[in-house]
């Protein structure tokens, strides 16, 4: 299942290690996560559901869906998709016994900081860099083992403004961002905690209290931050159809993580659901990884993504069916095939239009929902903005929410793109720093420049949805006096 030859990526598998999975020795490479190593070993069923005992497999790959929980070295409910595998680790799935009632001692650490940034994707790192350069103390926390968020799996070149790195591959941008933030870390400007989850907001006022934990190292952090920037990204949307929880049904991001970060094929033959940019790009990346793509189906009457991506797929013989969707996925313990059918104008399946697609993988690319739970715990004003992907925190032009000192950036402020996320991150970082150090003519000019560039990026025809989302958010912010 491991990819050896890839047109863009090289996978350095330097050190081979092994771990125990339910008593069996499994080979892995250093740098892989537990779930990806299991996948590479052909283990697709990662757990069974608690009531109906249904098999569950890899779905999101970024610690959001909790389908891959296992007991690792005795620690219960570890999200194995974001936990790096270590030599000699003991991994157990479907453990029936309760964990020990004896609490092991935990290490507690208090951290007081000027600015806490939650999430080290394009928005979060950009915010940390911007703030770190301005002489305030910054703490950057992310639950994934690697920094860069979803950029680390974007092998395609970005569109948009040249000034904002158009024409550069996402993976390269992630490297550059990491380099810059690591430099600030070396100089003591930014403290970075990867593999650590911020799990709760516990009250504010002149400063904000949050809890974070690194459960594999058994450390609990009590964070006291003057300002908090939430850049928590998004989670993949699910669809409701029979068989939607079978192992082999993946989110598009999960597929990208497996093949572009860890060099592991999700399967042999894929049915892609959704012809937006994500669906089209991931389909092409699957072909690059040597996986067959049977077809792409799209419920809307037209293709949502850029025509250049659609053309690339068609040139490679992958058909795209608009006004079609998945009716059912079947298989015992894992995907063996899917029934797709045509949709009428009322979104009902047209009888007799069913087709049986033989595949071992169904990939869902049906949109994202902003991750904003921690913001909601902080009590920010929120609203449902369909163009933003769901409920989002209402924020002003400078990315501050209705709660003083709480900022938001990137997908968790409304689904958009990495390039705009980076700019929103810079704005949030600048804005939070200014609130601590004061505003002068140079920071005012910088802020104007960032906001102007962001507006320019949204001006194109493909920015129309985000433009509308942000228009609504800003209008509401202005009405609310935020």
């Amino acid at each position, binding site marked *: 299942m491991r990819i050896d030859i890839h047109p863009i990526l090289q996978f350095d598998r330097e050190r081979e290690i092994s771990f125990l999975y339910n008593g069996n020795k499994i080979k892995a490479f250093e740098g892989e996560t537990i779930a990806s190593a299991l996948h590479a070993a052909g283990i697709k069923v990662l757990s069974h*559901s*608690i*009531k*109906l005992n*249904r098999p*569950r497999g890899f*779905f999101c790959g970024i*610690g*959001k*869906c*909790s*389908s891959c*929980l296992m007991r690792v070295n005795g*620690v*219960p*409910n570890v*999200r194995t998709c974001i936990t790096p595998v270590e030599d000699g680790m003991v991994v157990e799935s479907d453990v029936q016994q309760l*964990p020990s009632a004896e*609490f*092991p*001692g*935990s*290490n*507690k650490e208090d951290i007081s900081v000027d600015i806490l940034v939650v999430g080290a994707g394009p928005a979060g790192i950009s915010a940390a860099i911007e703030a770190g350069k301005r002489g305030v103390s910054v703490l950057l926390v992310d*639950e994934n083992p690697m920094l860069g968020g979803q950029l680390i799996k974007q092998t395609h070149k970005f569109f948009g403004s040249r000034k904002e790195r158009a024409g550069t591959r996402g993976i390269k941008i992630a490297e550059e961002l990491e380099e810059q933030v690591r430099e600030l870390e070396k100089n003591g400007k930014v403290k970075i905690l990867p593999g650590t*989850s911020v*799990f*709760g*907001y*516990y009250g504010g006022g002149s400063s904000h209290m949050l*809890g974070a*934990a690194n*459960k594999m190292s*058994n450390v*609990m952090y009590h964070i006291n931050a003057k300002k908090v920037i939430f850049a928590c990204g998004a*989670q993949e*949307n*699910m*669809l*409701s*159809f*029979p*068989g*939607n*929880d079978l192992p082999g049904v993946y989110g598009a991001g999960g597929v990208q993580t497996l093949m572009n970060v860890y060099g592991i094929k999700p399967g042999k033959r894929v049915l892609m659901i959704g012809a937006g940019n994500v669906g089209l790009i991931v389909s092409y990346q699957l072909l690059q990884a040597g996986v067959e793509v049977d077809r792409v189906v799209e419920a809307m009457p037209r293709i949502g993504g850029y025509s250049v991506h659609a053309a690339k797929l068609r040139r490679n013989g992958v058909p795209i069916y608009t006004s079609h969707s998945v009716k059912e996925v079947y298989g015992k313990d894992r995907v063996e095939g899917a029934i797709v059918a045509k949709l009428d104008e009322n979104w009902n399946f047209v009888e007799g239009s069913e087709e049986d697609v033989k595949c071992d993988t169904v990939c869902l690319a049906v949109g994202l*929902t902003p*991750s904003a*739970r*921690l913001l*909601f*715990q902080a009590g920010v004003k*929120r*609203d*449902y903005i*369909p163009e933003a992907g*769901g*409920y989002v925190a209402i924020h002003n032009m400078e990315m501050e929410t209705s709660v003083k000192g709480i900022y938001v950036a990137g997908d968790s402020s409304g689904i958009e793109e990495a390039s705009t996320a980076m700019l929103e991150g810079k704005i949030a970082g600048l804005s939070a720093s200014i609130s601590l150090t004061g505003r002068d003519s140079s920071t005012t000019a910088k802020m104007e420049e960032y906001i102007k560039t962001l507006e320019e990026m949204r001006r194109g025809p493909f920015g129309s949805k985000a433009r509308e989302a942000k228009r609504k958010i800003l209008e509401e912010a202005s009405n609310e006096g935020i």
Partner: protein
Amino acid sequence: MKIICRCEDITEEDIIKAIREKGCTTLDELKHLLRLGMGPCQGRTCIPLAARILARETGKKVSEIELQTSRPPVVPVPLGLLAGEEDEND
């Protein structure tokens, strides 16, 4: 079987039944009755889907469906880490 909540094994039929037969009209009521969104993922996967079903069944817009209350912890944290005694060796 259409699974809506992966953590708690709640199906689309379960949700429809709770709305039609038990009179649930909000996501919080579905949570109280079915544990919808109370599993380890804290509703990340199921809530957008459940909101759509609720809107369809009650004749409301999705924008009129209020979210459940979000409380810590948003990810699974061992109780020992939250409440355990501090290691005296440190």
